């Protein structure tokens, strides 16, 4: 019993610590990738290659003055960053990031909670992520942030549909809502090959869900200045950032889990390799996730941004019907073939 609790706590520590570190370096990577794309250096002053930059950034945001607008709604204004960050971190709980090892006389899964409705859990949690954004935008009592909040909530609700529907095809193929089942079903054949359309929809929708370019209308620098977090500064601002980037990481991990075989390694059955296999699986998972993180950054520095109506058009009139068609087709395939 005690060991169990210890193991779980360790896992949580690992995941949260890993996520935070990843976020910190994701921000650095973003700036580095920007430099690479735009043929300049990016941060290179703090530490070699700017590797200590995240720490400097962190210290800076901590020490910045924490401003609360005079007419803001104080309670919600203070709550909102946490409301963004918490769901972002919780979501990762059900993502399996490795095959698991046998130690202490039991099987330890590399996953905090292996619940049998994992996918639903993720959708449930992400669906509340929108509260932080909306309430943050509203409570700042700034028209720009309000517009940003409204935009982002409309966008997240719209794309959640396409997101959910695109996954249903995979659920039909796998017959389970457990993420581990989905991963194991992909040994030998990744879902991306079985459900390419679903993958495209999921990818686009997940970009929209995480408010990233070309869907970053909620915080579009040039229109809404910074959108919902315009009035935030200091630690609360960095919480928003943490939440956003954790969402990106979770999203990439989800793409990998759902479509790219999760922790599996192509052509190698890691479950039979013991501890080495576990290590390999974690590496495989990390590499795949890293690729999608890079894709996020890559797209960010390449594409312009949609307009609100175009965004809605894409979500409702293209992705949603496409997802439905894909679902229909998959269902027909499973039923008749």
């Amino acid at each position, binding site marked *: 019993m005690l060991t169990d609790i210890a193991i779980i706590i360790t896992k949580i520590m690992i995941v949260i610590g890993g996520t935070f570190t990843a976020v910190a370096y994701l921000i650095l990577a973003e700036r580095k990738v*920007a430099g690479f*794309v*735009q*043929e*300049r250096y990016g941060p290179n002053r703090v530490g070699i290659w700017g590797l200590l930059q995240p720490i400097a950034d962190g210290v800076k945001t901590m020490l910045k003055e924490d401003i609360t607008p005079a*007419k803001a709604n104080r309670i919600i204004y203070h709550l909102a960053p946490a409301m963004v960050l918490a769901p972002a971190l919780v979501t990762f709980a059900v993502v399996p990031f490795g095959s698991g090892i046998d130690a202490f006389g039991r099987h330890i899964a590399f996953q905090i909670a292996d619940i049998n409705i994992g996918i639903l859990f993720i959708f449930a949690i992400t669906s509340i992520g929108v509260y932080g954004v909306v309430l943050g935008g509203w409570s700042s*009592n*700034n*028209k*720009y942030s309000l*517009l940003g909040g409204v*935009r982002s909530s409309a966008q997240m609700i719209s794309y959640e549909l396409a997101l959910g529907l695109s996954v249903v095809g995979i659920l039909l193929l796998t017959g389970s809502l457990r993420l581990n089942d989905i991963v194991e079903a992909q040994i030998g054949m990744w879902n991306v090959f079985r459900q390419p359309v679903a993958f495209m929809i999921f990818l686009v929708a997940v970009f929209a869900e995480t408010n990233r*370019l*070309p869907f*970053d*209308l909620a915080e*579009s*620098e*040039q*229109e809404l*200045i910074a959108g919902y977090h315009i009035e935030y500064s200091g630690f609360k601002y960095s919480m928003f950032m943490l939440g956003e980037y954790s969402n990106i990481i979770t999203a990439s991990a989800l793409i990998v889990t759902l479509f790219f075989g999760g922790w599996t390694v192509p052509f190698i059955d890691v479950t039979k390799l013991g501890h080495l296999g576990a290590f390999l699986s974690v590496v495989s998972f990390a590499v795949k996730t890293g690729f999608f993180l890079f894709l996020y950054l890559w797209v960010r*520095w*390449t*594409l*312009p*941004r*949609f*307009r*609100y*109506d*175009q965004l809605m058009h894409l979500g409702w009139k293209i992705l949603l019907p496409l997802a439905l068609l894909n679902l229909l087709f998959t269902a027909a395939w499973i039923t008749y073939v």
Partner: protein
Amino acid sequence: MVRVENDLQGEILELSFGPQHPATHGTLQIVMELDGEKVLNVEPHIGFLHTGFEKLAEHMSYNQFVTVTDRMNYLSPLSNNIGFSLAAEKLFGIEIPKRGQYIRVLMSELSRIADHLVSIGTAAMDLGAMTVFLYGFREREKLYDLFEWATGARLTTSYTRVGGLMADLPEDFPDAVLKWVKQFPKTIDEIEKLLNHNRIFQDRTYNIGVISKEDVIKYSLTGPVARASGINYDMRKDLPYSSYEDFEFEVPVGENGDAFDRYLVRMEEMRQSLGIVKQVLANLPDGDVNIDPDSKLTLPGKDEVYTTIEGLIHHFEVTMENRGILPPVGEIYMGTESPNGELGFYIVSNGKREPYRVRIRPPSFINYTIFKKLMKGAMFSDIVSNLGSLNIIAGELDR
């Protein structure tokens, strides 16, 4: 912003865009009424950068005022310098030597490229495509290095004088320009690769801010904005000045008059400008850049000033406050093709050292008048597409 209790009826949101806003590229304010994402009405407010250039001109000699023109369109100060000097020369009734004219063409085309690079870059950045902006700025930096070399300053160039230039070009300058000219098309290609076939960029600019030919006349639009609507109106071709008639180039003209056409026209103009630059470099004549100092309008050579008393007196006559160069009594209007459109100077002289009145026809100011019409009924996000494609420079807007 104050929340009014039980207000916000009809859900129409009044939003103040600017005066400090990342997309205004300067200090201007747009007060708009929003219905959700839809713009019901906009009311542009300007004047935040108003520094009274026209009033200043009445208290400065002609050569002094050149420095003020730097601050107008700060993206292409050389064009402004040249425009004013040409106007003053027209008033004085003089024409500078060919070499001087060619160098002015070279400089104004280079600054046109610099201006368009920023305009396209910021327009793309406003739509979220940040990389284009930095590509453009990289090249602009190189151009500014060249400007600095030739004029001594990156931004406040003040390169021209009435009757010529501040100085002849440095010795290796043409070669340096040629080197830059050779590698620059790559950047244009890169930008086109990023934008031309980019579906999102197209969606954001196709049929956005469409200006009809009639509107071009009604709103007195000039420059790339007018040409994108299909009006072939280019001062360089139609009323050639400063030996523009010596060079071959095309005037790109658009069809639909939307934001995308304005972008395309600017891109093509950069290519054409490159062609002109090449021609200038190939045909740069020898000789003086200033008119003969004997006309008592330009400064004598330094060695003359330092060695002869006549030279020294001459120098004094031109520069001293109670002397200076004196124009004839008269009134002229002179327009040049600045990157943004027709930059006109209307000068009234009463024969004194300072002009009696200088009126600047600012292209941005007049191009901006159509903004209200373009935004009515558009989406909120179109504001940046329109602002960016019209290329409103606040310094020129307010003067």
